[in-house]
């Protein structure tokens, strides 16, 4: 038999970049032939490419792991599934089956949760834009509402007036926990006294009863200590409210923002080394709570984790459709999935795995998506051996935000499948076709063309 073939490559050696492992086949090169035991080739054959693939095994494992981390350290823990992270119905249903309530940030998400059968009292309604009608429905159905701004206090008071009863609501805070930039555009600022003023205003109005505090520091927070500082400040503020206005704070919603093992661009070390484990977050939060709360007082601790639960359970299979050599000598590939499906490529450097072993020296390569736009880059610099057209790449972790933020710009959105714990593959969203793009369009009569033929 003839020896295996490797594509020919020649590279100039540059000072400071003469590290053989950058190019060596044994290192930095990743192959994935299956996801949870289901061959990548079979998945594509049956459902097409590109394809979003979710692992039920990883989803449940992540949930259990995180829930255990918190519930073994604090007696009153509730998870609110962050819909915006991934609101495919099957994913949400799985999260609810695990015991999560719903955390929504818009009227659309609220309706989605209701349509999935989640009762109003198991929905947390957050966000800067809650339309009056959505707000009224949410109130009627008993949802937990975290107030974002003063106009929402007015809006809720109008609802209370209409219903003729007092409403229990939560207050969203923004505060300095050492995380910058501070997300000061959401909620009421703690340190400046704005939050206290808001509570005073509620008390004065007499229609709203403040019974919860909410604060979401940001996203991909790599310092467990930030949550401890946040919790400390929230508890202290809760005590102040109880003393000043007689409110009783029944829940502390500390938001999400826990990182997944994804590689944020601009972080030098790999995520396994750079990121604290979820237990470290749980420990910091539980310790801060125990220290700050009165003995025997255990208000409900709500976590709105999204990314940390779903990101690593999501994969995107894409196919190489063209190979190019750029004028500067860089190897380039065109894949059938780009930033239309991988919005988070802006911030994260994905793990990119090939569907088979390929011989040859690694080259610094760029992967472009299918869009006819210069910004459509999946990875501007990835070490890959020379790939051929038709090869599949599995991109991960992509479970968080990529599906919900995917675009229909010039391409159809692909199918999504869920691999069950016994290896069964369920289609959870069909691939789109022209009807999905045009269904809502209406043609003025004067443009209607006569059928040709």
């Amino acid at each position, binding site marked *: *038999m*003839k*020896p*295996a*073939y*490797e*594509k*020919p*490559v*020649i*590279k*100039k*050696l540059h000072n400071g970049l003469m590290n053989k492992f950058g*190019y060596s086949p044994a290192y930095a090169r990743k192959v994935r032939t299956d996801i949870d035991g289901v061959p990548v080739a079979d998945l594509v054959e049956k459902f097409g490419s590109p394809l979003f693939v979710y692992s039920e095994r990883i989803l449940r494992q992540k949930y259990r792991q995180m829930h255990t981390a918190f519930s073994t350290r604090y007696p009153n823990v509730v998870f609110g599934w962050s819909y915006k992270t991934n609101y495919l119905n099957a994913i949400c249903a799985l999260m609810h089956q695990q015991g999560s309530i719903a955390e929504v940030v818009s009227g659309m998400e609220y309706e989605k949760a209701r349509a999935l059968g989640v009762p109003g009292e198991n929905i947390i309604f957050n966000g800067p834009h809650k339309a009056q009608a959505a707000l009224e429905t949410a109130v009627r159905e008993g949802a937990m509402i975290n107030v974002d701004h003063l106009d929402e206090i007015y809006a809720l008071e109008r609802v209370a007036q209409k219903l003729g009863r007092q409403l229990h609501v939560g207050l969203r805070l923004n505060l300095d926990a050492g995380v910058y930039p501070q997300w000061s555009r959401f909620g009421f600022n703690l340190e400046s006294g704005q939050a206290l003023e808001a509570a005073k205003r509620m008390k004065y109005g007499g229609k709203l009863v403040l019974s919860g505090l909410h604060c979401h520091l940001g996203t991909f927070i790599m310092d467990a200590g930030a949550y401890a500082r946040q919790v400390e400040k929230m508890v202290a503020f809760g005590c102040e409210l109880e003393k000043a206005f007689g409110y009783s704070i029944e829940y502390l919603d500390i938001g999400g923002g826990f990182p997944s093992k994804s590689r944020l661009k601009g972080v030098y070390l790999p995520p396994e080394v750079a990121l604290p484990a979820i237990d470290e977050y749980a420990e910091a939060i539980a310790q801060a709570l125990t220290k700050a709360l009165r003995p025997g007082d255990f208000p409900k601790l709500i976590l709105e984790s999204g990314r940390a639960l779903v990101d690593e359970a999501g994969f995107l299979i894409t196919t190489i459709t063209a190979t190019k*050599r750029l004028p*500067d*000598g860089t190897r380039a590939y065109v894949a059938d999935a780009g930033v239309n499906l991988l919005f988070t490529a802006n911030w994260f450097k994905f793990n990119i795995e090939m569907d088979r072993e390929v011989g*040859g*020296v690694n080259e610094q390569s760029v992967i472009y998506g299918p869009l006819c736009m210069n910004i459509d880059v999946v990875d501007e610099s990835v070490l890959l051996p*020379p790939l*051929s057209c038709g090869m599949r790449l599995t991109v991960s972790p992509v479970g968080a935000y990529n599906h919900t933020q995917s675009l229909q710009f010039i391409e159809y959105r692909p199918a999504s499948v869920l691999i069950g714990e016994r290896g069964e593959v369920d289609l959870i969203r069909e691939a789109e076709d022209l009807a999905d793009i045009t269904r809502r369009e209406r043609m003025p009569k004067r443009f209607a063309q006569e059928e040709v033929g």
Partner: protein
Amino acid sequence: MHKLSRLAINEEGFVFNPTTGDSFQVSETGLVILGKLRDGHSDEAIAQALAEKYEVSLEDAQRDVADFRASLKNLNLI
């Protein structure tokens, strides 16, 4: 081909250009192509030789030889 003949090439894939002082690393099949180019073989003949020696189709080999030649040109080696 003049430039190619001046290169110092070792069998482990290390290439040194005494004229410019540049060093290069080249893969096994790249070494084969470099050697044949130095001996004055045509691209077509080199592709055929690759296809005979290795597990690769003639079409892929032709494509790769052309691509490799482009790299050499880019590196100012031919």
